[in-house]
């Protein structure tokens, strides 16, 4: 066998994620007065087919962190297993110490980058929020290990459609009510313009008191605009 053929066979037999299968769309996270708020819809897309409608894409991690994911759902669930293991082994020291959001974010960063180095990526964009010792933390990691912290973050389409809104309207001392309103405004824009977004979403909150993830709910929408109901009206060459 020639070496070129050897390479091809290798790729055929490989167990790498060369492209994602079931994916979730944008996650948005923001800091607000008492902590971090995060939101994501519950859709799981199989290509352009809406395959799952009740995927929980935000999970609490340890005592002080909240993780949201877009991208390959199975890879996200594998990441959750990694984190459960990490936290279990840390808890077994029973020394009263626990990982804060900064540590979890750093760990995720290393996992994502390590897997990209093996050309076997975890196909996700992750958002990690948390509060520990009165410190708010919000960061993100991509599939290839690019990571940063900011006052507001969003993955995928959210970076194009939600972050401009957040850059306009976000404030450090946003109340809970106003912060939820702001997130819903962003999710509504995404719902209208992101084809794979669905109108069933959750909002998750993390403060010094802990994590609460809301029940699924939907946003009020208005499709009555003329251009929505009759999009081709007036366009040349259409009827």
């Amino acid at each position, binding site marked *: 066998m020639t070496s070129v053929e050897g390479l091809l066979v290798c790729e055929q037999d490989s167990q*790498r994620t*060369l492209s994602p299968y079931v994916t979730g769309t944008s996650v948005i996270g923001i800091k607000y007065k008492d902590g971090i708020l995060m939101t994501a819809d519950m859709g799981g897309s199989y290509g352009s087919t809406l395959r799952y409608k009740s995927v929980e894409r935000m999970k609490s991690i340890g005592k002080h962190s909240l993780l949201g994911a877009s991208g390959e759902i199975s890879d996200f669930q594998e990441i959750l297993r990694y984190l459960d293991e990490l936290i279990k082994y840390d808890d077994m020291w029973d020394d009263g110490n626990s990982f804060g959001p900064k540590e979890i974010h750093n760990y995720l960063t290393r996992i994502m980058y390590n897997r990209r180095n093996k050309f076997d990526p975890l196909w996700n964009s992750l958002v990690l929020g948390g509060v520990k010792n009165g410190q708010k933390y919000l960061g993100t990691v991509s599939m*290839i*290990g*690019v990571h*940063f912290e900011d006052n507001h973050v969003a993955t995928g389409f959210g970076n*194009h459609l939600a972050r401009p809104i957040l850059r306009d309207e976000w404030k450090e001392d946003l109340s809970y009510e106003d912060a939820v309103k702001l997130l819903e405004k962003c999710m509504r824009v995404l719902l209208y313009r992101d084809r794979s977004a669905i109108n069933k979403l959750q909002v998750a909150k993390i403060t010094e008191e802990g994590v609460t993830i809301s029940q699924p709910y939907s946003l009020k929408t208005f499709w009555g605009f003329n251009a929505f109901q009759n999009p081709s009206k007036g366009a040349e060459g259409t009827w």
Partner: protein
Amino acid sequence: MARFSPYDNNGGTCVAIAGADYCVIAADTRMSTGYSILTRDYSKICKLADKCLLASSGFQADVRALQKVLSSRHLVYQHQHNKQMSCPAMGQLLSNTLYYKRFFPYYAFNVLGGLDSEGKGCVFTYDAVGSYERVGYSSQGSGSTLIMPVLDNQLKSPSPLLLPAKDAVTPLLENEAVDLVKDVFASAAERDIYTGDRVEIVIVNAEGIRREYIELRKD
């Protein structure tokens, strides 16, 4: 269909200028991908030793990995030698570290700046696979094509072919160098979409390290 690519270009521009008794290291704080801005406040400057700073642009995940390798190697060095690594030593270490990954490179464009063991300003400039050179000033990253010729014009370093060799340090005063850095960044931000938001300027001299920030275009 979406295909996996292990690299991204997150943009950014780095500049360093060496003077007789100071060194100015600067980089913008914008991090981008494609036409999107990821964040407007990401520091590209990493303090490796008391008098040695590294400014890097390129692929942020590789840059961060590189910084971690250098920091941990420096920690070991301190335990073994009970002193901080000199800037020229760090320069050689960075070159070796980059070349170690010659066939799966760190996509990182570095400028290393600081003071050498005599307290003179020094700048080392690199390519992604570790070729390097000690110079009097340098620029790397997405805005380097706009900045480098301006630095050449303003700082005219002596030819490296001269015998006996002349010092590459620039004749400018510290505050003149800082002003020049501000100007070149403001200019680069006009034309390079990957440069903007803010410049972080670090000045190293005998007194220690000082930081300055100036705002740039945010569009």
